[in-house]
């Protein structure tokens, strides 16, 4: 399980970083989403990876740490709302600037 989580984290983060560095706002937003998925998964795995141990005291002898789950919940809510905001902002910028380039204008436009 550790290996799967580690590979997933690596793929999510590297894809996210790659997409954030792209020039179009849509891929940047997508990259931010993937990065925050990776971060949430990382945060979640900080409660250690175990199976069949719910985060409730008394049910099992060795309950999971509930705090990372609470942290992840907060992080998900924030990243979800921020993604929604950045999508709207990107749309607004694309309409106002007549370009979906992150700088508002394509520096290579004249050459094409």
């Amino acid at each position: 399980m550790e290996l799967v989580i580690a590979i997933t984290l690596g793929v999510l983060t590297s894809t996210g970083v790659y997409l954030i560095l792209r020039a179009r706002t849509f891929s940047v937003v997508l990259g931010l989403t993937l990065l925050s998925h990776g971060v949430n998964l990382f945060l979640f795995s900080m409660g250690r990876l175990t199976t069949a141990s719910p985060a409730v005291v008394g049910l099992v002898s060795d309950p999971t740490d509930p705090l990372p789950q609470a942290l992840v919940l907060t992080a998900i809510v924030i990243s979800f709302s921020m993604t929604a905001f950045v999508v709207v902002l990107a749309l607004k910028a694309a309409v106002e600037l007549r370009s979906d380039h992150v700088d508002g204008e394509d520096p290579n436009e004249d050459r094409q």
Partner: protein
Amino acid sequence: MNHLMILPVVIPLLTGAFLLVMYRYNIGRQRSLGIGSCLLLVVFGIWAVLQAGVADYTLYRLGNWAPPFGIVLVLDRLSAVMLLLTALLSLFCVLYASRGSDREGSHFHALMQFQLMGINGAFLTGDLFNLFVFFEVLLIASYALLLHGGGRARSRAGLHYVIINLAGSALFLLALGILYGLTGTLNMADLAHRIANAPEADLPLLKAASLLLMVVFGIKAALLPLLFWLPRAYSAASAPVAALFAIMTKVGFYAMVRVFLVVFGLDDGAPANGTVMAWLWPTALITLALGAIGVLGAASLRTLTAYMVIVSVGILMATLSRNDEQLLAASLFYLLHSTCMTAVFFLLADLIGHYRDDGYDRFSIISPLAHRWVLGTVFLVAAVSMASLPPFSGFVSKAWILQSSLQLPGYLWLWAAILISGLLIIAALSRAGSGWFWRPQEHSATHARTVAKTRGLDHARTATVCVMVAISFSLALFAQPVMDYLEAAAKLVYQPSGYVNAVLGDYIRQGGEVAE
């Protein structure tokens, strides 16, 4: 337990929420609500400063959960000073905005209150994840405030600002994840204790977490490779918003002080903040140099002021990285001065731009200016203060920084950077002032008089700016008590064991296990 402690979070939260629901209220009521809330915060700030002067640490346990399990708010001298500064600054910004800038978009006053809630919370919290949450609160409000008024420049600057801060939030969470995974706690005092007693094998990961946090706070504070969003964002924002944003970079500085000197600084022998300080020193100096070059090259007063924010960040970070108690006290004094004066210049750029026929606050365009005498005098006095010439607070703070850095390694670099950047700022400001207040009259004196007739001087706005300059002057006038207070604040910061004892003392006394 003193319930007053929660007020700087609750007052703006309730006011903001009420304003949001009552958005149909006429603008006059919205303004008086906003100003009233800011006045209450000023009163609280004064109480906090007095309270922190009596008791070193005042705790507030949210929900009465004992630390390290619950979230705790901690008021000490440093956070009290920051709270009072924020409250005063916000009061002036809201007063200035109430003369018309708040009509440019909707929900200005509500957003301002949410922004204040985030900033105040960040200054008070004693929990690292709670710091993240308050950072998000202040960022979300700042995104909307930056876009206040709309327009192409704001959309473009806003997009950069939002994206870089979202990436920063992701890094913040990564750092928190690492810290929690290693220590099992996010309470700052508990973290400090556990980091100081961390096993050898955990040190590389702790170092990675501290560097990640440095990047995160570096984004907030606009440290070298992460500062390129700032000039565009600050010069695009409307004047009162930009003036309030003058405190935002200082939130980054405050977080660095709190995290790297307290949380990572407990172990006297080999504190875990060594790597961060080593990185901070060169980056801060280059930030300072870059800011000074930007000041000289700026094409408008707003851009110039934005680069002055960067210069102040460079000075603050450079002094922080020298890791000295006396120098920290001096840089806190400089923080008060620079926050106040950069805010003044953002407002002044708007005020002067309003009375120019053409070109707003751009230097390259020669245009008649109304009310030359009044605006020119205010500009002159503010520029003298900004350029750190006597008799203003800037001079006191820089002299103090230079004096207390004398015994430290690498002080010549700091001296050179501070003095040369000061010279460049004087050059840039005198060029701006002479171009605006002397040249235009030769061209069309008659025309300027007609502009003056159509636009009477806005006394409220001018008075707001004048009072802020007067505060800078009174900082120099009452420098001794302020310096004593800040020295005590810096002393507390450099005694992290006192912080840990204050927060965790009860827990340890009741037989709680703090660290293996």
